[in-house]
C-alpha cells in the first residue's frame, strides 16, 4: 500500500500545516493546506529575519546554492513529472525548471558586473553604483505552468539576494509545495524561501498590503487583481513587478533589485 504524502506549507525552513487548521482539495481528493493571513505573517517574519544573512552571502555562495537546488530538482524528475501529469510535456516542463535554476545560478556573480557602473562624476570623487536586493519579495505564482512558472519567478529573485514568500497557484499547488522539498535540501537557509498555498482571493489583499513586503510579483494575477494589488501596494510604496516576457534574462533579475550609489572623495 502506498504511503501518501501530507502536503504542507513551507515556512521558515519547516513543513507546517496552516495555523488555521484548514485544508482544501484542489483536485478533488488530495488535501492541501489552506493558508491564512497569519501563515503569511509568519512567512514574512521568517523572510525578513533571513534577509540580511542571505543578502550578505557571497555571490558565489548563492550561485552554488541555486545550482544545488537544480541538482535536487533534477534528481526528483520522476516525482515531478508525475505531479505534472506525466508524458513528454511534463518532462519538458521539469527540464525547463532545472535549466532555469542552472542558468540563474550562473548569474549571481556576474550581475553587478553587468548592471553596476563606475560613474565618471565631474569632481574628485570615486563613485560607483551596484545592484542590491530589494528585500522581501512576494510572488504570486502564475497559473500556466505549475512548476516552471514559479521557478522562473523565484530563481531571479533569489539570484539577486532577495528572500521570497511565494503563493502557490491555487488550482495546481502540488508541484510548488513539492518544490519546497528541493529548497529544503539545497542549503537554502531557513526563511529564504517560503511557499504558502491557499485561496488567492483571501490571501492576495494581505500580501499586497503587508508593510514589511518590499515588492510583489503579480505574474499570476488577473487585471482586476493587479489593480487592487497596486492600490494596496501604495501603502508602503511597494514595487509591483509586472514582467510578462517569458524568456530568462538579467533584466528580470534587475526587476527585483535596488541600485545603490556610493561616493567617496579622492585626495591625499
Amino acid at each position, binding site marked *: 500500500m502506498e504511503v501518501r504524502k501530507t502536503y504542507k506549507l513551507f515556512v521558515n525552513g519547516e513543513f507546517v500545516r496552516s495555523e488555521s487548521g484548514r485544508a482544501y482539495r484542489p483536485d478533488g481528493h488530495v488535501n492541501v493546506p489552506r493558508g491564512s493571513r497569519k501563515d503569511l505573517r509568519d512567512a514574512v517574519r521568517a523572510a525578513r529575519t533571513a534577509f540580511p544573512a542571505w543578502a*550578505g552571502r557571497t555571490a558565489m555562495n548563492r550561485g552554488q546554492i541555486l545550482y544545488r537546488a537544480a541538482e535536487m530538482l533534477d534528481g526528483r524528475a520522476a516525482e515531478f513529472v508525475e505531479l505534472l501529469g506525466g508524458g513528454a510535456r511534463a518532462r519538458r516542463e521539469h527540464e525547463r525548471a532545472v535549466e532555469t535554476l542552472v542558468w540563474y545560478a550562473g548569474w549571481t556573480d556576474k550581475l553587478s558586473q*553587468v548592471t553596476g*557602473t563606475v*560613474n*565618471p*562624476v*565631474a*569632481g574628485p*570623487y570615486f*563613485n560607483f*553604483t551596484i545592484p542590491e536586493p*530589494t528585500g522581501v519579495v512576494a510572488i504570486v505564482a502564475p497559473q500556466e505552468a505549475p512548476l516552471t512558472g514559479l521557478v522562473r519567478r523565484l530563481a531571479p529573485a533569489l539570484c539577486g539576494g532577495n528572500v521570497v514568500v511565494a503563493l502557490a497557484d491555487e488550482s495546481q499547488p502540488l508541484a510548488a509545495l513539492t518544490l519546497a522539498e528541493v529548497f529544503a535540501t539545497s542549503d537554502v537557509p531557513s526563511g529564504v524561501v517560503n511557499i504558502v498555498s491557499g485561496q488567492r482571493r483571501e490571501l492576495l489583499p494581505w500580501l499586497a498590503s503587508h508593510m514589511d513586503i*518590499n515588492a510583489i510579483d503579480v505574474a499570476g494575477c488577473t*487585471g*482586476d487583481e*493587479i*489593480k*487592487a*494589488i*497596486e*492600490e494596496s*501596494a*501604495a*501603502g*508602503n*510604496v511597494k*514595487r509591483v513587478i509586472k514582467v*510578462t*516576457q517569458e524568456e530568462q*534574462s538579467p*533584466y528580470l533579475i534587475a526587476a527585483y533589485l*535596488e*541600485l*545603490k*550609489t*556610493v*561616493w*567617496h*572623495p579622492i585626495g591625499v
Partner: protein
Amino acid sequence: MAITKKQSAELARQVFEYAPAPEAIDHVKILPRYGLFIGGKMVTAHSKKRFPTINPATEKTLSEVVEADAVDVDRAVKAATRAFESWSRLSPSLRARYLFRISRILQERSRELAVVETMDGGKPIKESRDVDIPLSAAHFFYYAGWADKLEWAFPNRKPRPLGVAGQVIPWNFPLLMLAWKIAPALAAGNTVVLKPAETTPLSALLFAEICMQAELPPGVVNIVTGAGKTGSLLVSHPGVKKVAFTGSTEVGKLIQRSIAGTGKELTLELGGKAANIVFEDAPLDQAVEGIVNGIYFNQGHVCCAGSRLLVQESIAEPLLEKLKRRLSTLRLGDPLDKNTDIGAINSRAQLEKIQGLVESGVEEGAELYQPDCVLPERGFWFPPTLFTNVSQSYRIAREEIFGPVLSVLTFRTPNEAVEKANNTPYGLSAGVWTDKGSRILWMAERMRAGVVWANTFNRFDPTSPFGGYKESGYGREGGLHGLLPYVELN
C-alpha cells in the same frame, strides 16, 4: 598650539561683518503674467484662474501664473501625443543635437536663470549659481549624448520610447528637477508635459522660452502651471503613458494608488530622513562642514538632507561644540546676496510646517539650540536649528522636516549605528564619516539607502544615479540607470 576652550568661545563670538554683495537683477525680465507652454508656443489658457508667485524673501509678487484646468492639461497632452509621432521617429542623432543645444543655452543664460531661481524660490544665489544651474546644463549635456547610443545602454535589447511622460516636480530645485525629468525622457524619444511646483514656476516658464530659442519641435516639451489639482489631472490623463514624480512620500503614495490598474509606468522620488553617521576616528572639522552642508544646504529643503546626525558617543561633546560654533558663523538673509549661506524658507506653508515640527521637538523633550540670528522682518525665515537629547521615537527623528533642523542622536558601536540609521521607512541617502576604509565599505554595504556619501555629503552629478529604497520611492534618475524609466525593452 591648540586653542583653549575660552579662546574658542571668544572666537565664536566674533562676528565678521561683510558689506552687502547683492547679485544684479536688472538683466532679468520677469513678465507680469504668463500663459502655458503648449505645442511650442506660449498660449492663453482655458482656465481663468490665476495665482501669484511671490519672492519668499520679500513676500512681493513676482508674476501671475495660470492654474491649468482639465482642458489645458488635455491640450498639453494632445500636443505631446502629436509631437511623439515625429519626435520618436526622428533620427536619434538629431534628438541629441537639440538636447546639446538646450544644454548650451542653459549655460549661456545661466546667470539669468540663477537669479530667477533665487528670487522665486528663496535659495541663496551662490547655490543656484554654483549648483542648480550648472548641474541642470550638465544633465542635458549628459543625456544628449545618450540619445543616439541607447542600444549600448541595454545589451540585447532595442529600447523604444514609452510615449507621453507626465512629470510633476517639487519646489526645492526647480530647474534641476526639470532637467532630471526632461533630459532622459527626450533623449529616449518620449515627449513630456511637465508641471512645476506652484511656488516656483518661473524657471520652468523661462525654460519654455529656451525650448523655443532652441527651435525644439512644437509639443515635445509642454509646461502647465498649477497646484496639486493640475498635477493630479496630468498624471491621471489617459494619454500619459509614463508618470514621474518627485515630492513628498504622502503625495507619491496617492499617485501610486491613483494610477493603479492603468498600466502606466511610474517612478517616484520621495522623501527621506537620512542618517549622517560620524565615527570617533572621523576628521572632525571636515565632518562638521559635511554636517552643515548635509542639513543647511538649501535651507534643508532637500529630500536627501542629512537630517539625523548619529554621532559616536565618545566624540559627541567636542563635535557638537564645533558644530554649534560653525552654526553661529552661518549668514542668514537676502538670498540674492553672494555671501548668504541660508536663504528664505520657500513658502509660508513650509515655514509653518517647520515651526510645528520644531515645537513638537521641544514638547517631546529635546533640547533646542539656535545661534543668535537676526531674521529679516519680511519674508519667511527660519534659523539654523539643532536638537540634542533626541530619542528615536520623537517626531523630529522620524518625520521629514524639510527645513534647516538637525536632530542629533548618539551611538556606541557600528552595529548600533546601522540599526538606528536604517530604523526608518525612508531609504534615500546616508552619510558615513570615518578614516577607516574597511569601515566605510562595511557601513556602505549595510545602509538601506540609494545613495551613500562617505566622507562627503549632498554631492550630485548627471552620471551618478539617484533614487531611493523603501518608501523613498523607486526608479533612478541620473546615469545610465536613469534611462531605464523612459524606455520599453520587451
